[in-house]
């Protein structure tokens, strides 16, 4: 049939087609316009590799803190401290990254984390349920919380901000009710259910004191990085955050994808609750009040766009470390904590400004 068609074209037409074809190729091929200024190339580069900016900021922060505080900053002890401080926020940040990549936001991550740690503690210590079962129950609780968020966003079509603002309060209230606002002491947990504190166990890498939780964090980031970059699911997470209508037309089930993202985020938050018990030893219902926003800070400082579709998971790890280094360095330098908060605030504003600039890309 193709041959048939070609015989229909008369010779003149063919020549004309060929000539204009060459024009077309020349026109369409001049992709990376040669006339582009250096600054636009920098911007395109940053759009392609958003994590680079964060890594540079991290390195600058380390150097700056080192210069200010001298030898006290570059000690194994201090690095151990920073890594342990950022572990819990990084885990929540991983969940938050998934949601923000879909152009959503999850204000309830901290509340889910604390609720799950409470479920773990109350069932294992107060109700005497075997510790393994208690851990599974907490993971299930996290999954249910995530599915509730996902349901609100996909079925009731609520904006994620409002949906999770509501669920944050509900989950936090449930947490206070279920725990009776009572802290479960560390000694009680280690007696009955030591597995709950598993992620707090020390691991020495040379002189650096890490915890099992830190390794879980790295493993989690590795697994999620793989899912986001090497599977169709991950490509779809990016696509629905970038342009949901385009994703729909490409045949992606946007609702199902969103539900799966909030579900996974809920389970990660439950893991975060487990890590939290390891970090602080006890189960404390009042813990983690600022974790919601801290996780968003890590994501944004890590170069992920609040408008969805672009960013990187590893950036979130870097973002959490930047905030950790900042706070640590300023504390070592004897700066009042209130100025540390101001500094983190400025960092967020800077990160979002850079993001807005990157998003202005036009060919």
């Amino acid at each position: 049939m193709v041959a048939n068609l070609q015989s229909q074209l008369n010779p003149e037409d063919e020549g004309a087609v060929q000539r204009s074809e060459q024009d077309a190729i020349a026109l369409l091929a001049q992709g990376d316009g040669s006339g582009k200024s250096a600054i636009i190339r920098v911007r395109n580069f940053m759009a392609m590799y958003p994590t680079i900016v964060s890594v540079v900021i991290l390195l600058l922060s380390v150097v700056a803190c080192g210069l200010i505080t001298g030898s006290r900053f570059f000690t194994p002890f201090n690095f151990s401290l920073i890594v342990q401080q950022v572990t819990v926020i990084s885990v929540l940040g991983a969940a938050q990254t998934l949601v923000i990549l879909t152009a959503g936001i999850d204000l309830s991550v901290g509340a889910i984390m604390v609720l799950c740690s409470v479920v773990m503690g109350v069932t294992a210590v107060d109700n005497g349920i075997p510790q393994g079962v208690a851990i599974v129950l907490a993971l299930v609780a996290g999954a249910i919380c995530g599915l509730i968020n996902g349901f609100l966003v996909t079925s009731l079509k609520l904006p994620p901000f409002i949906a999770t603002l509501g669920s944050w309060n509900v989950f936090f209230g449930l947490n206070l009710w279920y725990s009776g606002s009572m802290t479960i002491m560390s000694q009680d947990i280690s007696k009955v259910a030591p597995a709950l504190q598993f992620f707090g166990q020390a691991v020495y890498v040379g002189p650096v004191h890490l915890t099992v939780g830190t390794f879980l964090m790295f493993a989690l980031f590795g697994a999620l990085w793989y899912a986001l970059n090497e599977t169709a699911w991950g490509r779809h997470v990016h696509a629905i955050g970038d342009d949901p209508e385009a994703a729909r037309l490409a045949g992606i089930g946007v609702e199902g994808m969103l539900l799966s993202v909030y579900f996974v985020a809920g389970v990660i938050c439950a893991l975060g609750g487990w890590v939290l018990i390891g970090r602080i030893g006890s189960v404390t219902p009042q813990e983690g009040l600022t974790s919601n926003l801290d996780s968003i800070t890590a994501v944004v400082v890590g170069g992920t766009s609040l408008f969805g579709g672009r960013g990187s998971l590893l950036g979130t790890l870097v973002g959490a470390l930047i905030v950790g280094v900042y706070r640590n360095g300023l504390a070592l330098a004897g700066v009042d904590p209130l100025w540390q908060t101001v500094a983190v605030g400025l960092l967020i504003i800077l990160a979002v400004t850079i993001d807005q600039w990157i998003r202005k890309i036009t060919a």
Partner: protein
Amino acid sequence: MSDKDKPQPLLQARDLVKRFGRVTALDHADFDLYPGEILAMIGDNGAGKSTLIKALTGAITPDSGEIIMDGHKISFRSPKDSRAHGIETVYQTLALSPALSIADNMFLGREIRRADFFGRVLRKLNRAEMERIARKELNHLGIMTVQNIKQTVETLSGGQRQGVAIARTVAFGSRVVIMDEPTAALGVRESRAVLQVILKVKARGLPIILVSHNMPQVFEVADRIHIHRLGRRLTVIDPKAFSMADAVAMMTGALPPPESADPSSRS
């Protein structure tokens, strides 16, 4: 082409009716697309062109009437169904994901997984294969001497994006390509380039339904012109036998359709 080797229509619609409340968007509309042709579809705003296209792509389900492909009656419940039959659409919005790479966009929603353990168990994508096919398709259409198939779509020009969107529709064993106003958002030079790409698609033997308001372009590339008016096919004309002014007059009702024209016949 003589009568005896006149081919069967590839895609047909007969008597399609679609009502939205009291509005009759499709009023016993017919449609025929022959293998290898560029069929332009023109009509005034509100004539029902979009509704007809949506019926052909499964975006809506007609109230009555039938859609026939290769002589068999088929029904689409979603765009996925029509895609399974090889009907691909280049949307006016292009439906590309700007922050994803060219290759990722081309395979969005139908990614290729590796055949080994990683692919089957860990669902790992076969990046190399997808990039290879993407590069091949783009080269084939003369769109890319692109250095970097991993480049994000947002760094491309409007014409290049259109090219990627077209390449995506022809890359997957498609049998019919529908293009909705492919040059509406482009400048003159880029429009020319895209028209050349359309002719290349035709040269591969793929029939194209070209929905457009741009009369000079329609008359330049179309083999036949389907004129839609008041929810149905008014007539199909041969662009060589009528002027643009005639076509516009028929479209708006100022000129009656040519009596001799048999709408389903191929000129």
